[in-house]
């Protein structure tokens, strides 16, 4: 995992995501999901390239059921892009790096 991805949980979600000054991407992940494992390196790459523009975070849905519940996450991988505490874009399933870059540009 890239160093610039912040691990968040149900307790820190509000502070780290909703009250963040910078736009935030939350990667809702779980160790059992094959597709999520596969896109992991892509998210790591993006976090290296764009960390000055957007805060990258990851939330393990097994240990933290409240946050995914709040945003009706019922699929892994789901990536949600927040700006000023609001959802700007929600991406479900395996997508190309380019599509994630488009979402980053939209939110920043």
């Amino acid at each position, binding site marked *: 995992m890239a160093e610039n991805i912040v691990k968040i949980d149900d307790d820190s979600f509000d502070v780290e995501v909703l009250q963040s000054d910078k736009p935030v991407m939350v990667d809702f992940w*779980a160790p*059992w*999901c*094959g*597709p*999520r*494992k*596969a*896109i992991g*390196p*892509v998210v790591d790459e993006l976090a290296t390239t764009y960390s000055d523009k957007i805060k990258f975070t990851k939330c393990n*849905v*097994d240990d933290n059921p409240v946050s*995914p519940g709040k945003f*009706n*996450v*019922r*699929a*892994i*991988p*789901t990536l949600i892009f927040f700006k000023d505490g609001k959802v700007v874009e*929600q991406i*479900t*399933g*395996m*997508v*190309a*790096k*380019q599509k994630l870059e488009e979402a980053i540009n939209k939110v920043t």
Partner: protein
Amino acid sequence: MNSVDYDLVIIGGGPAGLTAGLYAARAKLNVIMIEKVVPGGQILVSDWIENYPGFPEGLSGSDLVFKMTEQTKKFGLNIENGEVISLDLENRVKKVILSDKTIKTHAIIIATGASPRKLGVPGEDIFYGKGVSFCATCDGPFFKDSVIAAVGGGDTAIQESIFLTKFAKKVYLIHRRDKLRATKILQERLFANDKIEVIWDSVVTEIKGGLTNVDKVVIKNLRSGKTDDLKVDGCFIWVGINPNTEFLKDVVKLDQQGFVIADSSMQTSVPGVFVAGDVRNTPLRQVATAVGDAAIASFSAEHYIENI
């Protein structure tokens, strides 16, 4: 010889593409594999594979493709991220056109696989990721103690429905006929599972819910014509696949469903263009058949390149 960027371009990075890449890299061809998302393909979503020989304990689809990818890297296969928009096969030197560049090559192996087929009913798209799913491994754990509708009757539908019972309290398997296509051993496991109830001769005609979640599916019995609401928390869909061949129309010969037609050397209607795996017109689509196709396709491509 005309100048090319590569001898061989492999399009797609599932088991077929990775195997073709492994053989081509070991044959020391100047080869590149182009993958749209990340290597793996459809098998990434498979929670358990027990019919691929050599792994008596079974393994997950993602573990299998990670091993395959590692093996290709050991032999130096060049893997690039990109989406192929079209092919120009007018000349001996073929052009693979990506969104941002064009690659010139002598030979091509098409290994673009297939995608899960949708039902094409109202609600399917809007509830995708919010209760509608094509992947039990990814999304099943969100349905603890829930009631789920699963649609289909083939191996995938049965295997994944059984997997869902690890979480769900009840799985309704909705199948349009009065018997299943799935392998016998899977059918035995299905009928022995008391959390699964099969609804025969029926199809889902609509998926309904609130703003953010599924709460029912509408089921139509094809014999009686009667329509009923079934209260569920999610709907998992496994009704077959569509080939990923939109970019191949009018370029190589396809069958009526859009799968690529090939001869026994895996060559398509265009010399130097080969095909492997689920995207091919083939009676069986498994990891074992994909890797077999790919070994032949790679061998044939090597032979073709040597004789240019």
